[in-house]
């Protein structure tokens, strides 16, 4: 009698990936990344002193890749939620193109290389801050807050607000008031922007069990919070002008755009009927993206004007 059984091991079928490059690019959340890169570019442009273009490009690339890594890790951790929501059901993980493990490995690799490259090639303060940003988004927001509290995007918004600060630190090796103002603008912009989205996607969030404010506190409380946060946002966005940090072009633009934001937030607050409310929240969501983009574009324009003014004879002498 043999003491060894000749049994065949039952192995799980080998999974061969058919994921294409486009699927991996989708993991980077390109639209979020573009906003991150743009706000970081403004942070770089505002920073004083000369910063070599190659180093500026390196910094932006590392910040972009770091943001992409955060997106990939976020999707790896939220595959179950994404599958339940119509907005995210088409992402590579719910579609079965990429596994959560593959997304995790991809995200960790990108995070590692983005932080290391920024640290080695630019400076370690910026590298450390980029690492903290990724950590905050993945561990504090995605793993800690997202499924637990309605304040998830309020606190988690800090991660999305940090890129211009990282860029400033990359350029100067230090921190100052201006990047903190940019941080505050994005920080207070995040809640009204995402709550507007959450209002017209509240069924999605409820089905996925994500405690967004409209799901937990109801639409009326959310409308009030959107209005209150928008008032704070507009005040904070205008403040750098009278305080002397940014010029009049920015100040006036900020006032005009702020009036638009306030009008839309007030519109959300008074639009209680379903179809009206839906229209109001969609308008707010779309305009809020334009608001942030236009505000930062104005800051960029100010830098350009300040740079070329001496060349064309303005502001000299």
């Amino acid at each position: 009698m043999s003491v060894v059984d000749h049994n065949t091991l039952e192995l799980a079928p080998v999974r061969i990936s058919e994921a294409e490059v486009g699927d991996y690019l989708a993991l980077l959340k390109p639209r979020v990344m573009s906003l991150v890169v743009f706000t970081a570019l403004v942070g770089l442009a505002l920073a004083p002193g000369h910063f070599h273009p190659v180093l500026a490009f390196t910094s932006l690339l590392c910040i972009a890749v770091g943001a992409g890594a955060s997106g990939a890790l976020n999707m790896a951790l939220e595959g179950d939620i994404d599958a339940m929501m119509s907005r995210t059901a088409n992402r590579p993980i719910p579609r079965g193109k990429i596994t959560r493990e593959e997304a995790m490995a991809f995200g960790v690799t990108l995070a590692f290389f983005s932080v290391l490259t920024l640290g080695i090639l630019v400076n370690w303060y910026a590298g450390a801050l980029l690492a903290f940003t990724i950590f905050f988004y993945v561990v504090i927001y995605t793993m800690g807050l997202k499924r637990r509290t309605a304040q998830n995007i309020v606190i988690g918004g800090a991660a999305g607000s940090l890129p211009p600060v990282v860029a400033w630190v990359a350029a100067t090796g230090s921190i100052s008031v201006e990047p903190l103002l940019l941080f505050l603008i994005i920080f207070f912009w995040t809640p009204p922007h995402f709550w507007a989205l959450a209002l017209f996607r509240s069924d999605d969030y409820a089905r996925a069990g994500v405690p967004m404010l409209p799901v937990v506190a109801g639409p009326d409380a959310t409308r009030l919070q959107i209005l209150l946060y928008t008032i704070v946002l507009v005040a904070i966005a205008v403040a750098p002008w009278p305080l002397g940090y940014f010029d009049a072009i920015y100040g006036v633009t900020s006032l005009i755009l702020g009036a638009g934001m306030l009008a839309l937030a007030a519109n959300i607050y008074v639009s209680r009927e379903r179809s009206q409310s839906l229209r109001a929240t969609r308008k707010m969501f779309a305009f809020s993206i334009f608001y942030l983009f236009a505000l930062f574009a104005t800051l960029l324009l100010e830098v350009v004007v300040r740079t070329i003014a001496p060349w064309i004879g303005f502001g000299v002498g």
Partner: protein
Amino acid sequence: MDEKREREGIVLTEAQLRSRRQRSIAIALALGVLVVLFFAVTIVKGPAVLNRPL
């Protein structure tokens, strides 16, 4: 034929081969960009490339 396939192990489909090739090219390009980046920054910084704050 079946015997041959067994000897060869896992045989990839056309789609799997194509996507693997795409991914390999993307990884090669990313590594190339990294090399060029390190080279360019070394040239820009000169000897100061070894002087890193913190």
